[in-house]
């Protein structure tokens, strides 16, 4: 037979280098590491809290150094760009809202998410006495 379809190789490990779209996706996906880190940081905090005031204060003190400042600052920016904002942007795809014969324009859903997000953030700041 003369047919001999040619299958182009796809690298299973470096495929995302093929274009910017894929790289952005990978940058989003690895935010899970940050989530993991902060989950365990928080658990650590809870452990300190459970152990009493001294341990708690010790925990707070242990966090106060330049390395952590840099890390948190980086994490905050990275997380906002690649996880939070992306998640809000994609929300209307997963949960479209149809009103009668028209879809609610995506931007309203996105705005609603931002409003809710601001509210949650402010609430937490208020709760923790930051503001």
């Amino acid at each position, binding site marked *: 037979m003369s*047919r001999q*379809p*040619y299958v182009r190789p*796809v690298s*299973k490990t470096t495929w*995302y280098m093929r274009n910017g779209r894929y790289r952005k*996706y990978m940058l989003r996906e690895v935010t899970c590491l940050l989530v993991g880190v902060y989950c365990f940081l928080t658990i650590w905090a809870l452990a300190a809290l459970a152990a009493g005031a001294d341990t708690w204060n010790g925990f707070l003190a242990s966090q106060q150094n330049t390395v952590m400042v840099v890390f948190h600052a980086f994490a905050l920016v990275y997380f906002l760009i690649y996880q939070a904002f992306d998640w809000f942007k*994609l929300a209307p795809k*997963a949960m479209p809202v*149809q009103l009668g014969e028209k879809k609610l324009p995506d931007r309203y859903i996105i705005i609603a998410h931002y409003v809710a997000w601001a509210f949650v953030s402010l609430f937490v700041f208020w709760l923790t006495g930051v503001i």
Partner: protein
Amino acid sequence: MSMRQMELEVMRYDPEQDDEPHFQSYSVPCEDDWAILDALNYVKENIDTTLAYRWSCHMMVCGSCGMMVNGEPSLTCKTFIRDLPDKVRIEPLENFPIERDLVVVLDDVMEKLRMAKPFIIRHDEPPPEDQEYTQSRAALYKFKQYTMCVNCMCCYAACPQYALDSSFIGPAVLALAHRYNIDSRDQGKSERLDLLADHDGVWECSFVGACSEVCPKSVDPAAAVQQMKIDGAKEWWKQKLGGGKS
């Protein structure tokens, strides 16, 4: 109208001659309003009649002219040279085996189309043969966008999960299943559940979103797939909770 000399670097592959694909360059005098497809037709008519590619309608509706244009899955009758640099690389759609030149093997997706059960399934009697179903405009609007797919397979060429594992059912077919699931006339959702149940179904999608970005018809298959996942998750709880009662 002014002319513009374009250089097309076209991927060629003739299984009877070549072990692997290679690029061939053509210098084509293009008119400003040409689409890439016109440039290919110029090559075929005037330079090299052996070049093989698919096309028919030249009006973005038959879906046959999908190719990679400078690395981007595109309908070539909808991709205009005015938006491109002087040198353009044209390859067959990625993630499909190359049959010949720019023609790819579509068997896999054509077979998967069947799996979506893309037809109305009814358990109740349909209306008599002289009477249509009533369907509100809102109900029509709900699924209309997913009927616009021309099966150009650009989304498959863009989806890395399909590239990594071609058993994944993939964007267009899932969007089609979703189209029928949410059609008010259809009652076959439960029969299409294996697309949700199976590992090759919606769960292989990691929401890269590339499919929707390249879709020339704004079908937004990524949205369809996410909605199916939500449906699937809801259904799971329903079965778990309902299962206890029955």
